[in-house]
């Protein structure tokens, strides 16, 4: 919508504006790792980093989230009746989110909000109250492959604003009314600034040298991929540890559990993972995904076949490369997908 300039010596003033009546979060360095934390000044936030170790999905889909509460007394007029938790009381801004993560949340929007019944108000409330200010990747990692799964180091999908670091200043581009309002006071960009941002984008894209191809996956039937011999090999090294699912920005499986303490009761949802044997086990003991192979296959098939089939070709992966970095047995999603596509 508009292109503005944010000088680096004006960052603190900009951030002050952001946190006036909102909670502001950004990637920070903590114990040698990049994680998300509340910030109020530019110095607290990171401006040069690859990406946070875990995705910021926790802001919309917390690892543990109370959904509803009840009075744990049978016979009380209000007893045992579930009451929804209140909505988020303050809007939020996520600053310096990477374009891949922003894109991931747009994919998740299609899953959490589909129609009147599949309308996850917990997800939706936090999404609607959060502004995303992205920071373009000028220096992608060797594990990044976003350009081959529909994202981009300078991608704008799902963002309100994208910042591009061009040296002593940032080019700020807005894509929504919310983003536009934030940039209102900033000076206009020059043609030279825009040219520089464009060159940085091309350079960043050129640095992404690995990737996946999905053309044959798209053309194949579910059963052809399901019965492909590669799963026997992929499953051998997998430990079913679930690390890939926890760091993944699009993994969204969850469990719902009840908790009580005296008269207080609540229903919470927790991240769950398809690598778990219990995940699909029936009360009878029958387990439709009872083997490790079934579970390993499920994760890749879900992201690269099932989601595309159901969501108009959208892939359930944004190429952030976290699972490649963190897998303890070096399973590389790029290799698995390229084998699926063979």
């Amino acid at each position, binding site marked *: 919508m508009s292109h503005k300039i944010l000088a680096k010596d004006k960052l603190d003033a900009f951030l002050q504006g952001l946190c006036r009546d909102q909670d502001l979060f950004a990637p920070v360095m903590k114990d040698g790792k990049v994680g998300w934390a509340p910030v109020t000044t530019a110095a607290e936030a990171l401006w040069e980093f690859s990406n946070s170790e875990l995705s910021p999905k926790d802001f919309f889909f917390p690892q543990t989230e109370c959904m509803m509460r009840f009075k744990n007394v049978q016979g009380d007029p209000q007893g045992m009746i579930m009451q929804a938790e209140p909505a988020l009381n303050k809007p939020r801004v996520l600053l310096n989110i990477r374009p891949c993560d922003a894109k991931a949340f747009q994919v998740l929007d299609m899953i959490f909000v589909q129609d009147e019944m599949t309308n996850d108000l917990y997800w939706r409330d936090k999404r609607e109250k959060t502004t995303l200010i992205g920071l373009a990747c000028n220096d992608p990692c060797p594990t990044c492959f976003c350009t081959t799964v529909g994202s981009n180091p300078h991608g704008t999908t799902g963002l309100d604003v994208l910042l591009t670091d061009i040296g002593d200043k940032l080019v700020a581009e807005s894509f929504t009314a919310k983003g536009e309002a934030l940039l209102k006071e900033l000076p206009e960009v020059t043609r030279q600034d825009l040219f520089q941002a464009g060159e940085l984008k091309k350079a960043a894209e050129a640095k992404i040298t690995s990737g996946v191809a999905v053309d044959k996956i798209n053309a194949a039937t579910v059963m052809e991929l399901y019965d492909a011999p590669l799963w026997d090999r992929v499953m051998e090294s997998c430990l079913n540890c679930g690390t890939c699912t926890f760091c993944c920005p699009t993994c969204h499986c969850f469990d719902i559990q009840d908790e009580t303490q005296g008269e207080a009761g609540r229903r919470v949802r927790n991240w769950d993972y398809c690598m778990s044997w219990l995940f699909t086990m029936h009360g009878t003991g029958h387990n*439709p995904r009872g083997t490790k192979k079934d579970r390993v296959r499920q994760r890749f098939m879900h992201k690269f076949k099932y989601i595309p089939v159901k969501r108009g070709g959208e892939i359930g992966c944004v190429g952030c490369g976290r699972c490649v970095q963190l897998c303890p047995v070096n399973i590389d999603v790029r290799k698995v997908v390229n084998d699926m596509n063979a």
Partner: protein
Amino acid sequence: MRNTYIPYPVSIKEVRVETEDKQLKSFWLQFLKNEDAQAFNYKPGQFAELSISGYGEIPIGIASSPTEGRDLLFTVNKVGSVSSRLHNMKAGDIMGVRGPLGNCYPLKEAQGKNIVIVAGGFAVTTLRSTMNWLLHPDHRGDYGEITFIYGARTPGMLLYTEEWTAWQQSGQAKVCVTVDREAPGWSGLVGFVPTVTGDVAPKPDNAIALICGPPIMIKFTQPVFDKLGWQSDQIIMSLENRMKCGIGICGRCNVGPEYVCKDGPVFTKTQLTSLPQEY
């Protein structure tokens, strides 16, 4: 905007022990609020999450038919912590119902056709709903012959005996109820469901079949239908898988790209042949 995770509060109106092993109990549930009862618009074949605060939720097929009024009937096997807790609850206790969830049997599409229903064990629940719906004076005229084949291990394991006896006596449907072995006091059919189905030999012309039962029954019933000339798209089945959200998000009940909770639980045999057997 309705939060579809919050159950409607209901009270247990009546509890009935259904089977001689006491593992199956039926619960009639009454909505506490009239507007909730009105919002709960369901069709035969759909299910709901039964919610017991402090224990959790279980997905259970709705055994009542909307033609029977506002109260809901569920017949529950005692298996895990939620169903065990439910078995210990009594009339007047407060619990919750979330739904209706999933798709329904294609009864609208089947107008003008003959309907064959094959049920084994306690999978008969949503087919009880279907039978009550089909036999209702408002709907009976829209369908041709109705055949109801139902089997259980013993006479004491048969559900809804009063009702299928009434259907039999009404002459509105051909009712064939069987038990696995001869039993004292049982004068009805004896034999496994696939055998009885073979004897009844339902014709595939202008018909659909709804088949629900344990995997072993389905495995041996399918060849019977194949031999009688039935096509895969005439055979309708209902799946069950472990569920949590019930609305197609939480990721565990999927069979390939299809979520049993949202895209199912009702699928045609044609659909199932193009999907992994993860159920």
